């Protein structure tokens, strides 16, 4: 295909999108407003199932199947990264030199690591009560572990990060989500139905399956992000082509 033809195809496609976009925008309800038919129904359903955070109720109960899809996208992309960024035959690992870090930075990171981890766990476990949930909290937990890379160096991070365990946890989180969904089938509900007792409103045990699915997502996201970053860090810090010298401090 010549460049000229390509540009024509692009222009045609762009024009089509522009026309459809304008047509769609003309029919949109105006910004703000006081009528929210979907919102009203979602809030009513969430309250009926004793889930204080309506967004979590939509994500993990009313539209739990969509979340399964999103989780699988993350799982798949982590898998793809692992395959793409693996150590190939013409590459070898070199021990990076330890990096020099200011003592005050080290002290801060050693203090902030457990605090950040706790905040991440708080956000995961309270997804059904307050804003947050498995994804947000999981990313925070994963970030907290990487404070050790900032505070010390890559070798210290590798010491407290058994990568194999995180790979297993990634798969286990994904599987747990599907298994909770399948358990609903056993009790006569639809796949991913909310089959557990709803509990007392605004307590940790409320919302039926929502906290369980939240926790599954939390495990999956934490492990997924750790594995993802591990591949990036390996490539940037340790793995070098055979003719390449690893002179960078980690």
């Amino acid at each position: 295909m010549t460049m000229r033809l390509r540009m024509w195809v692009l222009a045609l496609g762009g024009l089509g999108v522009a026309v459809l976009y304008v047509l769609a925008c003309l029919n949109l309800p105006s910004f703000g407003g006081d009528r929210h038919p979907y919102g009203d129904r979602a809030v009513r359903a969430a309250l009926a199932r004793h889930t204080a955070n309506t967004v979590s109720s939509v994500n993990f109960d009313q539209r739990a199947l969509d979340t399964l899809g999103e989780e699988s996208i993350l799982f798949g992309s982590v898998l793809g990264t692992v395959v793409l960024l693996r150590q190939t035959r013409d590459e070898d690992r070199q021990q990076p030199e330890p990096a020099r870090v200011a003592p005050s930075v080290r002290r801060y990171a050693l203090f902030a690591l457990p605090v950040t981890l706790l905040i991440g766990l708080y956000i995961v476990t309270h997804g059904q009560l307050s804003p947050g949930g498995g994804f947000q909290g999981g990313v925070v937990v994963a970030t907290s572990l990487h404070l050790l890379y900032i505070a010390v160096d890559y070798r210290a991070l590798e010491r407290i990060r058994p990568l194999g365990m995180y790979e297993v946890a990634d798969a286990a989180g994904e599987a747990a989500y599907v298994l909770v969904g399948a358990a609903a089938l056993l009790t006569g509900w639809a796949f991913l139905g909310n089959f557990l007792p709803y509990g007392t409103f605004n307590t940790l045990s409320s919302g039926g399956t929502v906290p369980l699915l939240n926790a599954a997502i939390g495990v999956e996201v934490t492990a997924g992000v750790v594995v993802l970053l591990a591949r990036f860090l390996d490539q940037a810090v340790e793995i070098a082509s055979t003719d390449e010298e690893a002179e960078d401090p980690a």
Partner: protein
Amino acid sequence: MTRALAAGGELLVWWAALTLLWIMLIGPVDTLEWVVGAGAGLVAAAAARGARRAVGDR
């Protein structure tokens, strides 16, 4: 013996502080919150000790 004691003490101090922090973060408190908070505090305390050891070994 003293090493084990020191390790246990470090873990205990972190665990108590982090569980207290958890109770400050949450809304209404009940028994389940305490249990979950203590568990999360233990995980974070173990991470704190692991991180310090990873630094201290060098």
